[in-house]
């Protein structure tokens, strides 16, 4: 399956009457890792949810490899080969670990097998019959990431995959993302952990109050470190 590219322009999104995204424009070329950074409430999660079709009221254009999906329902978008790891992890309590892993619909056969995923995350294998939400936070995050490796998707939307995790587990998650990148997949990452993201990211977008206010290519990261810190309010 060809790698997917993503292009967003003038995206507006609303929760009921409140207008949250005010014309977001960004590009994720095929095979690249792009990271969105920004303070809490900037609209990062909302951007990912809009791409996934999970925000009902949205306007503008979102194209995935040339196809405009602004009006498509989530299941159509997923079937194009887009996989989503939500910020809140979204582990199902009524499904056990294996069922959680098997839930996302396969789009092709290029994904990992269940065995491979368990090899990558041995913790999950040990807990494979447990109820999904009985896992620890870190295990749940592994599950959330492991879950999208099976489908054969080639565009990954990852929302703060390292949030609140111990360094060892962050490393393990980092390994999984590097693996995706090595396979040439396209990744749109939302990450507060700038050091973690910088290692693998090709370009950074900075969001503030529902807008993209800057784009920093990999090459400029060191040069503009001070500015980045200011953006993030560190």
């Amino acid at each position: 399956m060809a790698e997917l590219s993503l292009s967003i322009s003038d995206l507006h999104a609303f929760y009921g009457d409140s207008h949250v995204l005010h014309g977001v424009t960004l590009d994720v070329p095929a095979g690249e890792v792009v990271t969105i950074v920004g303070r809490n409430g900037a609209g990062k999660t909302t951007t990912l949810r809009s791409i996934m079709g999970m925000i009902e009221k949205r306007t503008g254009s979102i194209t995935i490899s040339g196809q405009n999906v602004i009006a498509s329902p989530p299941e159509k978008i997923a079937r194009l080969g887009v996989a989503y790891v939500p910020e809140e992890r979204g582990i199902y309590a009524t499904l056990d670990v294996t069922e959680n892993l098997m839930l996302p619909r396969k789009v092709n056969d290029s994904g990992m097998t269940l065995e491979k995923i368990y090899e990558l995350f041995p913790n999950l294998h040990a807990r494979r019959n447990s109820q999904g939400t009985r896992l620890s936070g870190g295990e749940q995050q592994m599950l959330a990431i492991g879950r999208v490796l099976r489908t054969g998707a080639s565009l990954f939307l990852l929302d703060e995959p390292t949030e609140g995790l111990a360094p060892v587990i962050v490393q393990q998650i980092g390994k999984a993302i590097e693996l995706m990148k090595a396979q040439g997949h396209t990744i749109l990452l939302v990450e507060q952990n700038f050091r973690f993201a910088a290692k693998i990211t090709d370009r950074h977008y900075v969001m503030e109050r529902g807008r993209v206010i800057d784009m920093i290519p990999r090459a400029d990261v060191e040069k503009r470190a001070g500015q980045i810190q200011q953006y993030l309010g560190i």
Partner: protein
Amino acid sequence: MSTQVLFGQLLVGLINGSFYALLALGFAIIFGLLGIINIAQGTFYMIGAFGGWMLLNYFGLGYWWGLLLAPLIAGIVGMALEKTLISRMYKLDHIYGLLLTYGLMMFIMGTFIYFFQTAPRPYPVPPELQGGYNLGFMFLPKYRAWVVLVSLTFCLGTWFVIEKTSVGRNLRAATENPMLTRAFGINVPALLTFGFGIGVALAGLGGVLAGPIYSVSPIMGGDLVIVVFAIVVVGGMQSILGAVITGLSLGVLEGLTKVFYAQGANMVIFVIMFIVLMVKPAGLFGQEK
């Protein structure tokens, strides 16, 4: 009192319990998945029974065809209603779903009464299931044993499908977090239609099974649905297993009450509900939320 009477009423209770279980199970599936209180659940029971009766009287298709086709008819009618009308309610305040199914129930029931009047119409027991077994302490008509058997099989089958198969896994996921489940490529709207169809088909199955015992009439499901409500409240609104177990046991309890305190038989289920609400508001098998 004779054991004859006791066991006779126990059997009646078990039969009623089987119908309660089928209807309550369907109701709980629909409620969990769609967030809709399907007050028309009894109407689909009636549609199932009439489906069997019409197949026999208009098309000459006997009981076995009825048993196969009538639940399908109920399910298809249900899916059509879900697609065209009920699905419009999901984004609204939940009570509109209840009111819509109430309106549908009145419309369907009123139309049937208009064409068929309320007098019960006989629907014969198939020749293969006539007669019965003498168990010594009581006489067990074959057909009644059959009803209990079929109901239990379908209740357990439904439970198995939901708990152990991939369709059931998708259903559970859609119940728990519909939007995220869609983001995993699962066509949840179609699943909701399907779930509604299954829920009402179970009621339809109950209807055909009931035909030979209670005869067929447009008003047959009218008050039944309220009993089903009480059962589901006692069992715990979304609990599949709770609906089945509560349905059966309250049916039996109702039968026993008939033996010991006949006046209270109609009310015993509601009294139980009252008590359960006071003691464990989430229901016996439900989780407080």
